[in-house]
């Protein structure tokens, strides 16, 4: 069995974080969910700054687009420009279906774009399929130190 994976969810909606947590709890991959509520916190977590000095390097980032302080595309840009962070796969998980958001996300190096469904069952399905795909089959980049 693969070792447990760490997932960082960047989302300002606590209800969405709780739903993802619930969806993951029912699955077999034993993923650990870490969450932050805005883009500045996300960069602090990823760069081990301040209260995140001991934060783990996540295997996957699930990133909302509309975030306070620093939006999702700015976080994505910063991650892909940082040599030590650019290999971490980023899944954009957003309610936006705007073509410009989807194309811009890929353009900036997002690994995939999953629209956040409004319906509860569809939401659970999307989260489970993300987990199954990324933690069940994909070879994630080596963590390094």
């Amino acid at each position, binding site marked *: 069995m693969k070792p447990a994976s760490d997932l960082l969810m960047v989302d300002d909606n606590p209800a969405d974080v709780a739903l993802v947590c619930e969806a993951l709890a029912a699955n077999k991959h034993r993923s650990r969910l870490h969450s932050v509520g805005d883009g500045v916190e996300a960069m602090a977590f990823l760069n081990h700054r301040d209260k995140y000095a001991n934060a783990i390097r996540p295997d996957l980032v699930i990133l909302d687009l509309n975030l306070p302080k620093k939006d999702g595309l700015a976080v994505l840009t910063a991650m892909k420009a940082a040599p030590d962070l*650019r*290999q971490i*796969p980023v899944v954009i998980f957003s309610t936006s279906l705007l073509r410009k958001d*989807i194309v811009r996300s*890929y353009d900036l190096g997002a690994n995939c*774009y999953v629209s956040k469904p409004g319906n509860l069952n569809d939401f659970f399905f*999307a989260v489970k*399929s993300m987990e199954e795909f990324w933690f069940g089959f994909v070879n994630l980049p080596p963590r390094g130190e």
Partner: protein
Amino acid sequence: MNENEVDILLVDDSQEDVELTLHALRTEGLANHVFIARDGEEALDFLFCTGPHAQRSFDHPPKLVLLDLKMPKVDGMQVLKQIKDDARTKTIPVVLMTSSREERDMAEGYELGVNSYIQKPVDCDEFRKVVKLLGLYWLVTNRPPITNATPQVAKQAP
């Protein structure tokens, strides 16, 4: 098949792997618009609308490229690099699907911007399972970039 309606560009020089992949996609109803390139050069001609594919349009990219690593003429890493280095093609999702277990290949793939990296399972049943999940994830769960400027009304026909 109309070359402008390709969902998946499958790039693999192994006949056996191509057949297994198509079979798995077919059982999920995902194999109707698959184009097969046998080496990296053919894949690049297809993606960059050159050579025998000069009639294709950049406005209709595949929704997914499934790319093997070790291939004749131009290898998978070179194909990936060219896709991700060019503004016309960089948004196309590319999944490296390879038998390589080299950590170096995995790291290089992600460094060059691969969307995901999957080791080909040796076991046939496991292979089918992976392809099925891969197809469903990228063609159903994932939202592909649509780079053409006008809405795809043609999809409504006939």
